[in-house]
């Protein structure tokens, strides 16, 4: 059964894209899983880190991005004339990031582009999910579908939460992180109120972790407010190797990062698989 997750936090700069990209790559390369990442952020950071510049340009010239999903397919509600909705073919959107030569493991991406932010302006009526694209047949093609979300509460957040109905929340343990906890809870509560869907919290992951007193104190506040099962015990330490890896458009285990940093990512992935 396909597992879906929105990687989300209302605060920017917490490592959402880094986590999404490394998680997707790990599952595909090291666990032989079939992974689809949808970049739902108009800033397109997941697209930048996952693609080669020339190949991405070629993709834009001949194929579609996630923005096109919203241009060509939306539901209508109330007294609004229903436009003719064309069929969406996943192949038109896919960018191949990784494909194993010896196993089923693969990492596909539906890229984003800046135009997505313009599309948002006209999205007052919907669509509210990606079901037109992620049909049951499409879902069967993947073990994991991950949505990298923008750090704002917008129609795209609604789309993500309705589509995946589960969230993975990267968080930095500082005073902003504690505030972000309150915001995330508010977003999830509002979503339940608006759509009757209470997304499953796969977990809160502490990013850029330093075993320092202020982080321990702030993380205590976060642990106290979420149920313990919803806070990952594995943490991603603060280290420059993620920045180095992102710059080279690769993952941390393809860098010279110390064994302890790679091991902690192993631990995180194992915990993610168990919780997702």
């Amino acid at each position: 059964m396909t597992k879906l997750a929105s990687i989300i936090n209302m605060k920017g700069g917490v490592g959402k894209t880094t986590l999404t990209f490394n998680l997707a790559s790990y599952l595909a390369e090291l666990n032989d899983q079939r992974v689809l990442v949808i970049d739902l952020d108009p800033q397109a950071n997941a697209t930048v880190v996952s693609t080669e510049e020339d190949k991405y340009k070629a993709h834009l010239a001949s194929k579609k991005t996630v923005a096109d999903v919203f241009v060509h397919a939306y539901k209508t509600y109330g007294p609004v004339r229903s436009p003719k909705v064309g069929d969406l073919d996943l192949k038109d959107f896919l960018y191949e990031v990784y494909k194993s030569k010896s196993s089923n493991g693969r990492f596909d991406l539906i890229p984003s582009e800046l135009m997505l932010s313009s599309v948002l302006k006209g999205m007052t009526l919907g669509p509210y999910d990606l079901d037109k694209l992620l049909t049951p047949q499409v879902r069967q093609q993947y073990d994991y579908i991950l949505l990298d979300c923008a750090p704002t509460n917008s129609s795209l957040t609604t789309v993500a939460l309705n589509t995946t109905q589960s969230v993975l929340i990267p968080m930095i343990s500082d005073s902003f992180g504690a505030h972000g906890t309150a915001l995330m809870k508010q977003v999830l509560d509002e979503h339940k109120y608006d759509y009757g869907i209470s997304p499953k919290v796969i977990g809160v992951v502490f990013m850029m972790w330093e075993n320092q007193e202020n982080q321990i104190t702030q993380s205590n506040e976060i642990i106290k407010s979420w149920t313990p099962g919803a806070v990952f015990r594995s943490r991603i330490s603060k280290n420059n190797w993620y920045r180095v890896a992102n710059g080279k458009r690769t993952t941390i285990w393809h860098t010279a990062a110390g064994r302890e940093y790679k091991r902690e990512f192993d631990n995180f992935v194992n915990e993610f698989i168990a919780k997702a």
Partner: protein
Amino acid sequence: MYRLNAAFSRYEQALRTLSDVDREAAIDLISSLAGVIELVKEPIGVAQPSSELKVIRNYLTKKLTEARSPASSKPESRDLLNHFRNELAHGKFHRKYGPNDTKRLAPFFWKVLEKSAPQWNPHELSNILAYCLHTSPSTNENLSSDQKKIVRFYKAIFNALDEDRQTSAFIELTLRLLSEPPFKGTLDSMVSA
């Protein structure tokens, strides 16, 4: 005087590299020394400084006696617990921490936690203990509002763990709870009482 200035210079250099906790202790020490130096600079015959020097001598004698005698268990446990936690928090834990340390410190830890229990929000207490012990929070209705029962519930879970898991759980418990005002306040009050 030259030696004194050199010593202060070395002290200031060292101060910059210290953790907050060590820096505070170092500042206390140097303030005390500065006070003593001010006193001894005064003529010995002046009544006030000599009487203060006498107070200092008595204090130091008392502390020396205490240090040489077997320490009472409460301050020792408090200091060990604080020391242990600070080493963990400041990344300076050099020796290997093992089950014997847990056996020595855990009973005192749980005693402090139980005493601090009424000061906690029951839900938050349960969440943080469950997280540290890698378990689910209790769903027992009878426990939900009784903090002492919550502490005993998780203490039983802790005691049932094998040595290795007990040790890793105790490290997590110490790191997290010694940052919490109810626990820290109770720990201090139990020693000064």
